[in-house]
C-alpha cells in the first residue's frame, strides 16, 4: 500500500479505551512496581556482594585474581557455590542481610510479577462480567499451577 504523503491525518495523542478489558494503567503500574522492586533488591545484593566479597553462604572466597578466577569457574559451572532456592530459606537469608539471598529475593519478585499481573487481569475481567476471558485467565493460571507442582515434584 502506497502511503500518500499529503494525506491529512488527524493527530489524536492519547489512545482510547477501545477494547474493553482490565485497567491497563493498573497492569502497567504493577509491572513497573514489580520490576522496580526486583531491581532494588538485586542491586543492593550485588553491591553488598562486591563490597564485602562475601556471598553470605560461602565462608572463604580467597582474595586476588586467582581467587576470583576460581570463584568464577565454580560459580559458573560447579556446585561449590551455595545459594538458597526455597522462599523460606531466601527470606531467612534476607533477614540476615546475606548478599546472595537479597539477589534471590529480587529474582523471586521478578518471577512473581507476571503471575500477579495475570491475577489482576482475571480480576478485571470478572469485574466486567466478561466470563469468557475470566475463564481464559483461570485456565492459564491453572496450567501454570500444574507446571509448578510438577516441577517441584519432579525436581
Amino acid at each position, binding site marked *: 500500500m502506497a502511503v500518500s504523503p499529503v494525506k491529512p491525518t488527524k493527530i489524536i495523542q492519547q489512545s482510547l479505551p477501545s477494547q474493553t478489558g482490565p485497567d491497563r494503567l493498573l497492569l502497567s503500574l504493577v509491572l513497573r512496581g514489580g520490576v522496580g522492586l526486583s531491581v532494588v533488591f538485586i542491586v543492593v545484593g550485588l553491591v553488598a556482594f562486591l563490597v564485602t*566479597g562475601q556471598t553470605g553462604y560461602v565462608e572463604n572466597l580467597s582474595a586476588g585474581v586467582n581467587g576470583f578466577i576460581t570463584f568464577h569457574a565454580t560459580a559458573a559451572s560447579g556446585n561449590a557455590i551455595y*545459594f538458597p532456592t526455597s522462599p523460606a530459606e531466601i527470606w531467612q537469608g534476607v533477614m540476615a542481610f546475606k548478599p546472595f539471598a537479597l539477589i534471590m529475593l529480587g529474582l523471586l519478585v*521478578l518471577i512473581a510479577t507476571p503471575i500477579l499481573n495475570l491475577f489482576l487481569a482475571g480480576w478485571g475481567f470478572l469485574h466486567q462480567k466478561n466470563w469468557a476471558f475470566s475463564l481464559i485467565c483461570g485456565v492459564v493460571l491453572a496450567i501454570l499451577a500444574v507446571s509448578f507442582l510438577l516441577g517441584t515434584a519432579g525436581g
Partner: protein
Amino acid sequence: MGSLAGWIATEFCQRRGAKDKLDGTMGTEVVLILLALFAVALVAGAFGSLAGLGGGMVIVPVLTIFFGVSIHYAIGASVVSVIATSSGAAATYIKANLTNLKVGLFLEMATTLGALTGAFVGSYLAGPFLFLIFGLVLGFSSFAMWQKRNQELPENVHPDTWSRQLHLADKYYDSVLQREVPYEVQGTRPALGLMYIAGIVSGLLGIGSGALKVLAMDLTMKLPIKVSSATSNFMIGVTAVASAGIYLARGYINPYLAAPVALGVLFGSVIGTHLLMVLKGQVIRWLFIGLLVVLSVQMLLKAVGIFN
C-alpha cells in the same frame, strides 16, 4: 582458554602486574565480568523487546561459549532474562495499548499447555528431527515475511467467528504514522494450533519461542507487526514463568549470573520499547527477517550435528 571471563581476568592481571594483587575483597575483575555480562544482556534485552523475543537465543550461547557457563545455569539465566524483557517492556506496551491483552491471554492457553506437553514428551522425540522441523519452519516463515516486506500494515483481514465473539479487534496509536490504527483479527484457530507447537518447542528447548509467537500472530492472525511484537512480549513472560518455577526449584537460577543478566536485560528492554515506538513497522519486519534467517540456519546446522 575458552572462557572470555577468564581471559579478561588474566589479561587484566598481567597488565597490572602481579604486585598489586587484591586482597580482602573481590576486586575490579569481578566488576569487569559483571559489567561484561550486563552489557551482553543489555543488547539482548533491547533487541528482544523490539522483536518480541526473550533474548534467550542470545544469552544461552554467549554464556556457554564465552563465559564458560554450564548449560543448565545458562538456561536458568535465560529464563530470568525472558521474564525481565517481558515485564520491562510490557509495562510500556500495555499502557500504550500496543499489546492486545485478549489475543495474548487467549493464545497463552495453548502455549502454556504446549510447554507442559513439551516437558512430558521431550524425551520421546529425537533432538535432530526436532531441530530440522524447527529450522525448516523458521526458514519458510522468513520467506513468507519477506514477501510482505513492503507492507506497513496488514490488508484484507477477515475476522472469524471466535474473533468476533471474543471481541479481539482493537486499535492503537502509531506514533510513526501519526494516526490511530484500527485492526481486525483472523485465523484464531490455526493460531491456537501454532501456539501449542510454540509452547512444546519452548518446553523442549528451553527457549521463549517468541519468534514462533510473532510468526503465528503475523501470518495467521494478520495483526500489525508492532502489535504482534508487543503481544508476544507479554506472552513470553507468562510462558517463561512456568519453566522458572522448575529451574528455581532445581537450583539452576544462579544469583551470580542471573543478577547482572536480569539488570542488563531490564535496562535493555527500556531502550527497545522506545525504539519500537519510533521505528517503522517495515524496519522491525526487516530486523525480524534477518533474525529468522540466522536462527533457521543455526537450527538446521544443529540438526545435522555441525553446530551445538
